[in-house]
């Protein structure tokens, strides 16, 4: 600047602008000008169907894959479908309970509790890898020498969600059968709020072991084996009924029937098959609601479902 001042007898801004004028610049924006309100409603103001997704897997993995699913539902239901996620299953259950969301896919464990708590209705279930069931896998890192649940005593353990069937209830029930609780059995445990996060927690050494949804594990086997190549399955559970599609108790019967029809037809529709293929789903089918009864019973055993907490009218 001193040089330019001596050379040209003006401060640098002036002559720099002279040269700079040759280069096209941007628009003028006033940051201290008029403001708008946050989260202004979309201009159209159209009715939106809010479809909840339990965070079985993290949003990083599921956001894109469910986008096409939501788009398909939007085009076939005739109303915009918006995917709604919450960190915990209980938050999703709360949205379904108060009618903020009309439908969703929730975890088996969360459904079992919500069915008993406020009458959440199962509509149907997805068919994943040709089955409507899944398992819980207790996993650890290769070389940790954990071969049974007993070996996990005093370890650091990762659960996914307090209302998760495979990600919590299964291990809690096993410990309950042994007369223990997670707090008593493990040195330390924590919740990751998605099964893929539990995998990462174990792989990265944050936890010694964890319990996950077998479908998430299988998805990594198919898509990115490097994520799980240093992990081993300590124990496979029995089969559980898969995460169901549910509707809010406040949802209209008309909407429920329409959604049911759209979901059933997805497997026969090329666009529907494409949308479902992103999720590893081959179609939807109906199963008996009673298949979830053992989960309900287990929750009761564990004290998650109590007669006091239930608001169901039956």
């Amino acid at each position, binding site marked *: 600047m001193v040089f330019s001042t001596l050379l040209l007898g003006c401060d640098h801004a002036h002559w720099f602008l002279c040269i700079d004028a040759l280069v096209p610049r941007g628009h003028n924006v006033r*940051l201290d000008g008029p403001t708008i309100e946050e989260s*202004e409603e979309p201009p159209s103001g159209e009715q939106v169907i809010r479809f909840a997704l339990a965070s079985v897997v993290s949003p990083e993995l599921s956001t894109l894959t469910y986008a096409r699913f939501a788009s398909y539902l939007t085009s076939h239901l005739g109303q915009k479908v918006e995917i709604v996620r919450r960190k915990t299953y209980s938050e999703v259950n709360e949205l379904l309970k108060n009618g903020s969301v009309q439908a969703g896919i929730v975890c088996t464990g969360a459904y079992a509790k919500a069915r008993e708590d406020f009458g959440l209705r199962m509509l149907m279930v997805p068919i994943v890898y040709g089955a409507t069931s899944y398992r819980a896998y207790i996993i650890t890192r290769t070389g940790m020498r954990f071969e049974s649940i007993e070996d996990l005593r005093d370890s650091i353990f990762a659960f996914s969600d307090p209302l998760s069937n495979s990600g919590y209830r299964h291990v809690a029930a096993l410990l309950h059968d042994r007369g223990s609780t997670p707090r008593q059995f493990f040195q330390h445990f924590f919740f990751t709020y998605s099964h893929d996060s539990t995998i990462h927690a174990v792989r990265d050494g944050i936890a010694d072991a964890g319990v996950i949804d077998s479908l998430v594990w299988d998805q990594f086997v198919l898509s990115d084996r490097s994520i799980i190549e240093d992990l081993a399955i300590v124990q496979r559970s029995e089969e559980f009924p898969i995460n169901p599609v549910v509707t809010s108790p406040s949802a209209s019967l008309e909407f429920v029937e329409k959604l049911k029809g759209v979901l059933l037809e997805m497997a026969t529709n090329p666009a529907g098959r494409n949308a479902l293929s992103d999720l590893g789903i081959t179609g939807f089918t109906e199963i008996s609601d009673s298949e979830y009864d053992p989960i309900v019973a287990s929750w009761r055993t564990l004290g998650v479902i109590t007669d006091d907490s239930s608001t169901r009218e039956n």
Partner: protein
Amino acid sequence: MFRRLRSKIIMSFCLLMGAGGLFTTVLVQESVSRAVAASVDRNASALAQTLAVQLTRPLAYSDQLATKQILVRVRKTSRDIVYLFIVDAEGRITGHSFSGSGFPRDLLMLVNETSSKTIHVETGVVRDVSIPIAGGVLGTLHIGSSMTWAEQATLEAVEDVMAMTVLAVVVGIVGILILAQLITRPILALTGAARHMGKGGAFTTTPVTGRDEVAELAVAFNQLVAQVQARISESNELRAYVENVIDHLESSIIVMEESGVIEYANRTATEWHGDLVGQSSEDCLEDKRPNLQDSTRHVLMTGESCKTFYSAPSGRIYELSYLPMEGGDGRRMVIERASDITEQRQMADRLQRAERLAVAGELAAGIVHTINNPLDGVRRAIQLAPQALDDTNRTKKLLDLA
């Protein structure tokens, strides 16, 4: 103004350096600006990608508080970040780093921008970089990075280039002055020598230093001077020889211009008529050349030579020949050659008389011979006639013959 080679060299150098400096300055300013903008874009994109991953969960979970905390924290920890905001697919602002009065409405012009853009805000120039979150499903993150440091970097680069340009010009001018001196000194010496010789001065050669083009020019000049000197010497010798020959002619040689002014007269002419050069032929020769004007006019008009004679009151006879001549510069001139042919004419007359006498003698001899032949026959017939008196017929024939 720039007649001298040195001035031209210096001026050309200054213009060249000035143009080069300006061009380089603009080029550097442009390239640095682009490089800096690209750097800002890269840094902002890297930050945006990291943030996009961090923001995926709070956005997916509609956790506005966590979203806001992340954006504000990044805004506060990075002094070059002017703002951050997230716009969803519907054009709604789902999070931003502004506090207090809220989100500036002017920034809405960027919600549909997918490429980097430069804008002006109150505090300076800002580069807006946007990146989709979760493929755009969760919205688009915009990061506004201050370009103030970038402009400063550009400014410094431009200043450096300009300083170097000025320095190069100054050093270059000094160098050019020295170079011009080295180049022009021998040239000026050559010019001085040529000018001196052109004014009739002595032939001089210039010293040759080095082996460059100027030295070659000096060598060629010296060779030329030597050749010219030799040619002039030869020419002078030849001229002296020719003038000597002409001066020793017994004829008078006068060269006249078209106007009649005598330009040259040889020694014989000078002896006959005095100093004629520079004088008008009419004034000094008219009384000795009765047909001078007619003859010179004839030669000038026709380009053909002519001849006439003049008998002087002294009795001398002159043959006057007029010949056309073209001067070296294209001027038309007339050469007069005057020869004293008095003796020739007298000799010719005597010879003519001798020839006439010889012819008369030959004629007389012929006549004598012609007369002698029949007389000899008569004499012989008469001599024989007495011997043939007996023979009347023969005598008669001899008498007839006689």
